[in-house]
């Protein structure tokens, strides 16, 4: 194994550059180093002006997503040796505007996320004494997979529909809506329906499935969307055919 590897890193300083450029750095190739460690080596030893986001280094915070050799990945969970002998191309996440270098603007996602009410919606406000909701393992299993989402947005970077239609609510937001819809303690499914069963909601999805391939946490947003389509279709038609039973 060679002891160095070349990283071709996308650079973009909106104040100085007209368009993104590529800069090459040679970093040590160590077996236990993730791509993020290579970037931190550059930042610490070679070029302090390189900008990128990271925090936990353990696949939890969801902030280190980038495009590595064309694929959206968590750079803390992707190893340099997987790409040896290199070079490795590192670019910002696709489908998001670039703020600087590898840092993207995530405003759009942050606006969509609260729109699906990703919290337990209750019709009754329980008193403090009554707020313990018991749940069986089977009830937990209904939504647990969707609760693993770390908001890394790799699924948005992977989604060709989001690339074409920025208004699409997107994979993670819909999966997160399902995380609460399927929770036995939640009563907000009908509130979320009005947002999810629209042309920008589940109906924009054409079931490409790239979101599920990209997801580092096994959330399967494509499956969540597909499953919700049946719910959305039956609820919508029921309210058309039987307006008196509305909701």
């Amino acid at each position, binding site marked *: 194994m060679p002891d160095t590897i070349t990283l071709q890193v996308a650079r973009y300083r909106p104040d100085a550059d007209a368009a993104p450029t590529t800069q090459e750095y040679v970093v040590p190739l160590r077996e236990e180093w993730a791509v993020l460690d290579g970037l931190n080596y550059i930042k610490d030893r070679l070029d302090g002006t390189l900008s990128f986001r990271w925090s936990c280094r353990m696949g939890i915070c969801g902030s280190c997503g980038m495009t590595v050799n064309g694929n959206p990945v968590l750079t803390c969970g992707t190893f340099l040796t997987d790409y040896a002998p290199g070079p490795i191309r590192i670019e910002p996440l696709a489908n998001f505007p670039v703020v600087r270098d590898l840092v993207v603007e995530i405003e759009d996602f942050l606006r969509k996320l609260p729109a699906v009410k990703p919290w337990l919606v209750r019709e009754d406000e329980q008193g403090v004494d009554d707020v313990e909701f018991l749940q069986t393992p089977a009830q937990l299993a209904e939504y647990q997979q969707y609760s693993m989402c770390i908001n890394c947005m790799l699924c948005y970077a992977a989604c060709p529909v989001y690339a074409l239609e920025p208004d699409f609510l997107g994979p993670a937001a819909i999966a997160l809506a399902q995380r609460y819809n399927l929770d036995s303690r939640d009563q907000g499914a009908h509130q979320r329906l009005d947002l999810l*069963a629209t042309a920008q909601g589940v109906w924009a999805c054409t079931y490409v499935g790239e979101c599920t391939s990209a997801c580092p946490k096994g959330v399967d947003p494509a499956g969540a969307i597909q499953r919700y389509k049946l719910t959305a279709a039956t609820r919508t038609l029921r309210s058309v055919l039987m307006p008196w039973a509305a909701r």
Partner: protein
Amino acid sequence: MTMAKRSSSEAMAWLLFSAGGVVSALLVPVLLLLSGVLFPLGLLVPEHAHLAAVLGHPLTKVVLLGLCMLALLHWAHRFRYTLYDGLRLKRLSVPINLLCYGGALAGSVWAAIVLF
């Protein structure tokens, strides 16, 4: 966030698309195997009178018509999105919808004429 309202046409189009996918996946391979492989190769030789009776039965006709309609509606939805996203023609959505769903309707009428 401002969002469009619930879309019942999309809901309907998707339900028919799914139904079309399911019935096509279940029935078309069987029909193809029978009429495309087993009958022509003589591996299964149905008695002519019996086959004619089965095909002439109103129930068979209704089932076949349903299969044709749903399969065409499945095609319409798929092809609509192929044109929208694959060829980036979403701005032409009105003629595309007319082509796809009009085509499915025309095909269904034709199937009905052939069958009945």
